[in-house]
């Protein structure tokens, strides 16, 4: 079957040294839990989840600790049971070294699970299934950590022609997907079958590079033994030639189906969707076992005694893993991801997150410091290897000159930052650094633009409101004066009727009448007011009051001669 399948080819690509043997020798190990787990709330693309636990809370393994913020976000969970000791800002596994909100848990060592129940996706609506996956924290484990529930959606067509499962794993040093396929093939096939149903896909193609014969054999064997016949028929393991970056989503789709997704469009519109094998396994665990995403397989390689793959609880400090693998002296930095696309971390205390597929302990010998950049000679080697069919040297010129509009005209955002161009550059220009710089500048400008547009709108609305309020006030005032005039005119008419002396002018007369009316009102008021405490007094009290008044009069008479004359 596979022999008949016609494979396609993507443009460019390179063949670096793979260094995969070292870490692929030993089976996946489960490291002991560290003394503290620091779980960042922001572990996927999109909104930062809200913490729903507080310091001192006891949490169970799999308990949700961060609730998804809106649709484009994904929940996070406690990786083991224990007590929450802190909810604060801690450094993230990110090249910036900036801090984000993290939940720190002190494990109790008992690893007590929540009551995990499988999810019956066949009875649930597609929306319920997507909400379930969001709350289970399933994100793309290939490295982009895009929330998977947004991708488990057949799109406009309502069905998918091809579901591509990415087991290519093209980046050097990394073997976590290889080991996953070797050791957990049955669960992985179940995950692919579930996804096929959810996405209504006709066929499922699992693409694996030909440098992983064990994984290919294991997957094929598991497929023949799969109990679900329909799943067996629809799923196919396809061996693809080893060439970096065959594991890029667009590149693998191109190799397997021949479809080239155009700029700015989505693969679902062409009946294709691509997921990493780790994601497929996480979906199996979430749906069939009711377990949210709590751990992931991480390759530890580079300058360590025992490189290998570990099923690591999310939130484990990287230092813990490096010590477990036998740290060798001379390590000057940690790289998260592979040598081609990975980022250098600020320190070794940062925690493992959902995006951590590999930790590389780097030494100057293993990864020599970048040699000085030389001028671009326009040799065009970068364009020859670019798997996205871009013109890397043009992008470089424009990024360097900070002509960001031009970089977008040359489709900077189609660049997948695979690093092929920098790998072949004879002038050793760190091209990807320039692209990352340009991309983040463009994003910053877009954010500024959005903020400015909102400010303009609010400013204009405020001016509109002020104008309206002014008019309303003026109208009110006018109405009030009109009412006052009317009243004055009425009083005037009345006064005229009463007036005996016609010599007075009408204005004087009205004024007099007003004064008279006011005096009358004042008199009436005075009459109405009486001392409040002089009624309902008994005869004795009256007598007492009279006696007091008499005494007072006496004293006043006595004091009068001594007082200065009153004027």
């Amino acid at each position, binding site marked *: 079957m596979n022999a008949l399948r016609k494979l396609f080819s993507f443009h460019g690509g390179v063949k670096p040294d793979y260094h995969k043997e070292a870490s692929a020798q030993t089976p996946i190990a489960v490291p002991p839990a560290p003394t503290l787990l620091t779980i960042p709330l922001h572990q996927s693309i999109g909104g930062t989840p809200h913490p729903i636990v507080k310091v001192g809370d006891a949490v169970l393994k799999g308990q949700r600790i961060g609730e998804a913020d809106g649709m484009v976000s994904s929940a996070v969970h406690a990786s083991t049971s224990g007590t929450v000791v802190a909810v604060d800002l801690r450094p993230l596994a990110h090249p910036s070294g900036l801090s984000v909100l993290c939940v720190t848990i002190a494990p109790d060592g008992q690893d007590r699970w929540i009551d995990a129940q499988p999810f019956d996706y066949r009875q649930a609506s597609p929306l319920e299934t997507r909400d379930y996956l969001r709350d289970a924290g399933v994100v793309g484990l290939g490295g982009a950590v895009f929330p998977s529930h947004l991708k488990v959606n057949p799109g406009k067509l309502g069905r998918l022609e091809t579901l591509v499962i990415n087991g290519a794993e093209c980046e050097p040093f990394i073997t976590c997907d290889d080991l996953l396929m070797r050791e957990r093939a049955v669960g992985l096939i179940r995950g692919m079958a579930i996804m096929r149903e959810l996405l209504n896909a006709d066929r499922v193609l699992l693409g694996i590079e030909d440098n992983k014969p064990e994984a290919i054999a294991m997957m094929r064997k598991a497929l023949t033994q799969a109990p679900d016949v329909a799943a067996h028929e629809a799923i196919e393991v396809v061996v693809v030639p080893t060439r970096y970056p065959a594991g890029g989503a667009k590149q693998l789709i191109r190799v397997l189906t021949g479809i080239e997704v155009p700029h700015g469009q989505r693969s679902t519109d062409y009946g294709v969707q691509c997921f990493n094998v780790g994601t497929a396994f996480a979906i199996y665990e979430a749906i069939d076992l009711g377990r949210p995403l709590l751990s992931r397989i991480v390759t530890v390689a580079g300058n360590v005694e025992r490189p290998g793959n570990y099923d690591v609880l999310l939130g484990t400090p990287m230092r813990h893993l490096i010590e477990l693998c036998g740290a060798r002296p001379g390590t000057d930095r940690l790289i998260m991801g592979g040598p081609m696309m990975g980022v250098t971390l600020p320190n070794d205390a940062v925690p493992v997150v959902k995006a951590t597929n590999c930790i590389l302990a780097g030494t100057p010998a293993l990864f020599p410091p970048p040699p000085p950049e030389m001028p671009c000679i326009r040799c065009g080697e970068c364009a020859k290897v670019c798997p996205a069919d871009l013109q890397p040297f043009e992008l470089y010129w424009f990024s360097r000159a900070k002509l960001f509009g031009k970089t977008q005209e040359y489709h900077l955002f189609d660049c997948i930052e695979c690093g092929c161009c920098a790998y072949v550059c004879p002038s050793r220009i760190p091209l990807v650094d*320039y692209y990352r710089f340009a991309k983040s500048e463009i994003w910053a400008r877009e954010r500024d633009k959005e903020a400015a547009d909102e400010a303009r709108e609010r400013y204009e609305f405020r001016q509109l409101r002020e104008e309206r309020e002014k008019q309303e006030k003026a109208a009110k005032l006018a109405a009030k004066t009109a009412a006052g005039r009317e009243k004055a005119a009425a009083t005037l008419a009345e006064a005229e009727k009463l007036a005996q002396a016609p010599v007075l002018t009408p204005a004087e007369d009205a004024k007099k009448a007003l004064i008279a009316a006011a005096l009358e009102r004042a008199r009436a008021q005075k009459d109405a007011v009486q001392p409040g405490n002089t009624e309902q007094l008994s005869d004795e009290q009256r007598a007492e009051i009279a006696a007091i008044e008499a005494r007072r009069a006496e004293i006043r008479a006595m004091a009068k001669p001594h007082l200065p004359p009153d004027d």
Partner: protein
Amino acid sequence: MIEAILVMALGAVVLGAALGYAAVKFRVEGDPLVEKIDAILPQTQCGQCGFPGCKPYAEAIARGEAEINQCPPGGEEGIRKLADLLGREVKELSAEHGVEKPKSVAFIDEQRCIGCTLCIQACPVDAIVGAAKQMHTIVAAQCTGCELCLPPCPVDCISMRPIAETPQTWKWKYPVFAIRPVHPAHPAPGSRP
């Protein structure tokens, strides 16, 4: 001869009608140049340029009554963009209108706020919420950092705080390489950091 004149006259009438129709149908409302200038300005509405808002400043620039270097929040880049748009020369930011500062938002010390509403009236983008004799607070996401709320406050409880960088807003730095001296004994004077 007469046919030729008639044909030409008919052509003139038809084309004239078409042009007249187009002039009515596709009439440009407002001044597109003002809109373009306004789009470049940062919309802080701070009035540091000497005009009561970004739009009036844009109108003044379009009329040629104002220089392009009077907007401190827009900074050097804003001046460069305006110069590009208008074909004028790039100038230094005019010192009398202020200096370029890092982006910040206003912050009300809620312990000291007496609820006088003066800052609410001063805010050009309605980013302060509160009521008379009630505590006020800033909606940080909508604050443009114009500082117009600072002078009216009778108890000086408003301060400007620089916006903290988050991993979402963090930017990759422009790649710069250290130039190492060839002879360590004589370090090159112009080595870049």
